[in-house]
């Protein structure tokens, strides 16, 4: 079942999925990458995404939900245009990760896992994002920002707000 009528995805992504399912000995192995790509395109894993992915992989919706709920990086609600993920794992914590997180909360006026009313920013506390040597670090969409200080965070967030930094998914020409 590699072609789906009325796919909810862009033709490019649909084509990518058509190929993806052929790469594994069992189709359902494509489930996690599919959910990630779908989330990048749609913004979150919506009910429609669950249903189409299940259909593509010959799974029940329930199987998809089961896997989906296991991974904290997959979300079922829309995030802001800029999803700010602040690391508070060991290295970052030791170097002021919580301060950065608190600063973001204050600056954006939202709590962890919330989105600003204008839909521009959302905030998330995350585990290690693999940038420990330059801790504290945060990730905005797919862009890394490290050796952070509250001032530096202000600067970065202002630039996003002004639309001056494009993250890599947008650079890819979406």
């Amino acid at each position, binding site marked *: 079942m590699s072609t789906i009528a009325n796919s909810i995805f862009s033709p490019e992504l649909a084509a990518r999925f058509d190929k993806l399912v052929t790469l594994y000995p069992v189709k359902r192995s494509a489930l996690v990458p599919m959910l990630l790509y779908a989330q990048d395109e749609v913004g979150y894993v919506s009910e429609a995404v669950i249903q189409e992915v299940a259909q593509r992989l010959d799974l029940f919706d329930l199987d998809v*939900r089961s896997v989906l709920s*296991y991974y904290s990086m997959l979300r079922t609600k829309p995030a802001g245009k800029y999803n700010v993920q602040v690391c508070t794992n060991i290295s970052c914590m030791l170097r002021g990760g919580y301060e950065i997180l608190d600063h973001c909360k204050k600056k954006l006026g939202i709590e962890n896992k919330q989105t600003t009313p204008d839909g521009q920013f959302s905030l998330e506390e995350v585990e290690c994002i693999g940038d420990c040597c330059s801790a504290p670090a945060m990730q905005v969409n797919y862009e890394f920002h490290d050796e952070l200080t509250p001032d530096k965070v202000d600067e970065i967030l202002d630039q996003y707000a002004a639309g001056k930094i494009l993250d890599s998914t947008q650079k890819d020409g979406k």
Partner: protein
Amino acid sequence: MADVTITVDGKKITAPAGSLLIEVCKSAGIEIPAFCYYPGLSLQAACRMCVVRQEKVPKLQTACTTQIAEGQVFFTDTPEVIQARKATLQMLLGNHPLDCPVCDAGGECELQDMTFKYGAADSFYAEPKNHREEQKWSPVVYFDRPRCILCYRCVRTCSEGMDVFALAVENRGSSSTIVPNVPAKLTPDNLAHLDCEQCGMCIDVCPVGALTSGTYRYKTRPWEMNHVATVCTHCGDGCKTTLGVRSTADGSEIVRGDNRDKSGINSDFLCNKGRYAFDFANSSERITQPLVRQPNGELKAVSWEEALTCVGKKFAELRDTRGGKTIGVIGGNRLTNEEAYLLQKFARSVLHTNNIDHHRTADYVAFAQSLAGTTGRAASLRETLTAPAVLLVGGDPTNQSPATAWNLRSNVRLNGARLYIANTAEIKLRRQASAFLQVAEYGYGALAAFLAGDDSAANIAAPDSAALASFRDAIRSEESLLVLIGNDLRGAELKRLIDFGLTIPGTKFALLADYANSRGAADMGLLPDMLPGYTPIGPIDTQDPSSRIALEYRSPTTPGLDLLEIFEAAETGNLSAFYVVGSNPIARYAVDPATLKNTFVVVQEMFLTETAAIADVVLPAANLYEKSGSVTNSYGDLQQVKKAGDRAGVRSDFETIVRIADKMGADVRKLVPFGPVSNAGGTRADMGQTRGAQSGEADRHAVWLTANNLEPRLSPFDPSAILDEIQRLVPGYEILRLQLLSGNDQHLSPAAAPIRDNAGLVQISNRRDLVLPAGDTLFTSGSLGRYSAILNDLRQFRPRQSLIQIDVQTASD
């Protein structure tokens, strides 16, 4: 695999290499506790309760996943092992609500048992417990999340056992939870629901009280009920079930249906009907007083004495003035064998008529005659769990014989059985089939012919001739075959299929019918042209053993009217009396009630059905859960029925028939040969011989009889007196009494006499086809279903229209 010897707690045990340690220990009498392990389901190793110490292995091992090999040494009871189990319990109890005093599982909870055994530890958790509200997933399945110990038994039984996949785990770590397949955000009421077969298997396997049933929850405690092992009344599979019974003001009420000892033909299984749909028995719509129609046309409640006198007098008068030939009798598919036998004997020997029939849901006459002269060719339900190859032609077991479907799925999953399915519809079981053949509409006869080698039948049999040919090749290459036949096949078509099957040496057959005792009704001779045991009615020949029954009955020697002919007779004014016992032919055959306006109609029923509503006398009847006797399932497995529920005012059909005969002035001793001496060959008064080691003083005997729901005095209402006669006279019913009385099933093969040439008898090919399949689904049960509140709830329960995974259309009635 080769046997190996291992040592467990110093004891040498020999078992096949590769067996699971937990099972090996169990058969050696060493108990290893387990929560997630469940025989027959995939291994999970999630709970760590089964840990044991293995010599030379650094860590404790889980016995549920350890496969044994030569020379291994295990310890299952050391302080270290006990401490580890205690720690597991401590963790499981960390967030457990400990509401045992109100929990349904209290008293039969595996977690409770283990805590008793290993002792409650101090809890290191100081945090408040994380409470979650209970969830109603469906009318019958409730979930109490904090009680769940995440053993995944429910998830596995639903997916592997049921092939429904309605349950799964969501989230991770300590927030993991079992969820149903319809999430809250997709339902109109914003609550999560189950879209499934509602079998309750998940509740059954749940070791704790996390999953509870809508019919039983918070009603009683296990030790406050009596537990009666009997047979489910709903479908032709005849599952063994244990009913939990409690006394009430007007009798006793059934509060639970359960598969408690799992020793029956249904192994682990009960479907939603067996588990929940006992509630018709407690329905407030039950008739509990005899009703007699008054000159003003109304039905009026009268005493039993008055009603029976009225029936007896009228039956005798009509028989004597207008002749037995003008009386018609219809029996039910849920009577016991003893009642069915007694009813036809009463019709033939007291009413002097062969006009007796029942609503036939499968053609057992053709089945028996096709197997005449063979031995060992009829299969037991147990064989659906073990046969290496199964051919299923017609039928839809998932809906119509759920236990058969469960066994077939288990057989395919656990034993790698090959299942071949030929059906006009894409039935759900095709998901387990090695080959599925789409049969053309009305193509079963042609299919049988094609299988037998008639290639010209191919294009009528199936649309895809290549698939058809390879299907036949696959079947013919099997060395032995279990052939299950749906009730879509009958008469000549059925015979053709059986004739083909008989050419394969190890083939066995079963014909699937719709109700608990459909097979028994046919075996016991509720047929106009057959005496019990498929003995054709014809001229009596004193030398011929098959004339024995007719000789004893002194019944008419010409076949009577069948069900439809009885109604035709009514239409032409030739039916003086119509006696219906536990059947609803008016609705089932869409008969115009006006047809019977000049007929004296007597109906024994639980409810005011369409048939009861037009009766002149309605006699309130007990149902199968309220009487003793035996039933025979579709396969010929004979089982004991024990009285569980009780309702003041009703009587068993057995008693009522005897009382009517008595009121007619018949010799009751001839009808029911009770008492130590009898002119009909005598019953053997049970004075101890069936009790084996129990034999002893007379008072103990009475206690034993009572415990087995037998009449302590041998009275004319004792079905065992009729069972004696069945055993003595009915071909194929050579019963092992002790086997029956100890609650075990035994398999009987139909023993039709080979058809005699030129005897002028009705042959399969010219017999009228009167089979009318009930077409029941999981949530219907003939005329009974609508009186079960829970089945009605389930039928109407629609968590979300688009997701329904199974076919649940309403039955025709």
